[in-house]
């Protein structure tokens, strides 16, 4: 019986178009055997939550470099809760000041990956969280 592949949604919330990181991660996770859906740019929290439900994902990876994380993350977490997607692992990658990290984790973000993180570290984290 085939193993169920981990399904990951990589999303770019907000107005920012800097997608280098999001695209590199999407490809790295794909190469690591995960099923990856990339939302593209300019996603609202509503669009991301809907996509997560539609695609029935295990993980959501948000790429945020714009400083809008304190607005976007709580909004998304609330929407996921409303839609009963409580057990989705939500990860954030990008530019997040140290002082904001505990607040994001309190809101339910599983982990924050800062600049310089290796793709292997992210793959390992997801595998650990979703071990068969």
């Amino acid at each position: 019986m085939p193993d169920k592949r981990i399904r990951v949604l990589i999303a770019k919330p907000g107005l920012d178009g800097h997608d280098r990181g999001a695209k590199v991660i999407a490809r790295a996770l794909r190469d690591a055997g995960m099923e990856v859906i990339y939302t593209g740019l300019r996603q609202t929290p509503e669009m991301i939550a809907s996509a997560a439900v539609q695609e029935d994902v295990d993980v959501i990876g948000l790429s945020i470099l714009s400083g809008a994380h304190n607005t976007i993350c709580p909004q998304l977490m609330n929407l996921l809760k409303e839609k009963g997607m409580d057990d989705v692992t939500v990860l954030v990658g990008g530019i997040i000041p140290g002082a904001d990290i505990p607040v994001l984790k309190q809101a339910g973000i599983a982990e924050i990956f800062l600049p310089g993180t290796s793709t292997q570290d992210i793959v390992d984290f997801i595998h650990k969280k979703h071990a068969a």
Partner: protein
Amino acid sequence: MTVPEKPNTATLAPAPPKNSERQAEFTTISGHAIRRLYTAADLQGWDPAAQLAQPGEPPYTRGIHATMHRGRLWTMRQFAGFGAAEDTNQRFRYLLSHGQTGLSTAFDLPTLMGYDSDHPLSEGEVGKCGVAISSLADMEVLFNQIPLANVTTSMTINSPAAVIWAMYLVVAEKQGADWKKISGTLQNDILKEYIAQKEYIYPPEPSMRLVIDTFEFAVKQTPKFNPISISGYHIREAGSTAIQELAFTLRDGMEYIEWAMRRGMNVDEFGPQLSFFFNAHSDFFEEIAKYRAARRIWHKAMTERYGSTNARTWALRFHTQTAGCSLTAQQPYNNVVRTALQALSAVLGGTQSLHTNSLDEAWALPTEFAATIALRTQQIIAHETGVANTVDALGGSYFVEALTNEVEAGAWDYIRKIDAMGGMVAAIDRSYPQREIAEASYRYQMELDKKQKIMVGVNDFVSEEKTLDILQIDDTVAHRQAARLKKLRSERSQEEVNRTLSALRKATKSTENLMPAIYAAVKAYATLGEICDAMRDTFGTYEEVAIT
């Protein structure tokens, strides 16, 4: 003293055995192979009289002026912007008082995307990545106590560039500055938005129309203003190689020229007002070779492809910014060193203008402290190192000339490929440059992950981190802006706003130049969002096909 004999390349010592070098092969950060030693053999058939010539003379390899930085130092132009207009106005005046010689404006994401600060999509983003400008009123505050007649300003704005430029021109007019004399640069390079930065609003065709409209306007009304800064910086930040950065930028430039010529403009009408913007990345000599190759390629393209007869069209003028993507969150003080070395390469490469990044920019927008060190970096290079005392110090180096030739050849390959696709708009349509960039950025990440390329403090030489004090953007900015917009809408003549927006909508449906209609709407205090929406009504919006 006798002139040393030219080396007999047949008697050069053979390469030492492979295992005596640190690596099996050495490549630049872009993956370009670098040899152990460069000699005259690497320049066989190379004619210095034609390929190198003199600075200030075709093909401009050594620089676009005879005196270069001996005549005039590059403009020290630090990119700045955050919060509301008064916050950035304060930072502008701080930087000017500390010796910077030109202004450079960073706008926030809502402004970049043509949304007012109180638009629903602006939530959480107001003033975070740059200054929030929603109307002429904000622009007036931005340049409070800054005489536009006496300072040159660069504005990093693309899709709404024509609107922001109109605001700037009205401020200048109200200050009594002469449009024929004011100088500055509008980034206004929409092609690289589709390729890399992704701050597009409208589809390519109407966007190109807007750009050519600004060319026409600039030629007639603001002869000293650069209506465009054709950019490679963002392409490189997105992960391209140096050769791709060079090729895509110059081919973008050629695309703008061809669209303008199709409208009936002569290349020499607007050619002298085109400007460029490159990245200064970490591989020192590759960057220098890139700048030198850029000038040579541009001269060749202007004369051979477009029949330009004006030397001011041939001479490629550029601004440089040190590579943001090279800055590390880890051990941030190391970034001062990175920026200094990158800045040095830009100076040795003959840049006309330079921005140096701050040490804390992998964490946040720069603090005053960090921004001051960045500016001082340029001043130390200019006044203490002696590199500005001679022109093209590295000219004649076997390595630098060979690398310049190789980078040039690599760029021409890409340019020809894009020509064969039908040009840059066609290439973008089939996602060609986007795919090349995605491949290059993935390749580099894999090299980092495998430690084939080292980033100090990140994948090697790791040490314990201390927290850094970073800039906090005041969360009241959004509220302040909302209050201002409410006040603006109640105080202006709504009738005049409606009339000018209606006239703009009408103009978008014809082929007339849009600048006058935009200028009229701006003067009536129509907001950025209202003006951009009027254009959205006719032009529609662009959605990219995402490539991963």
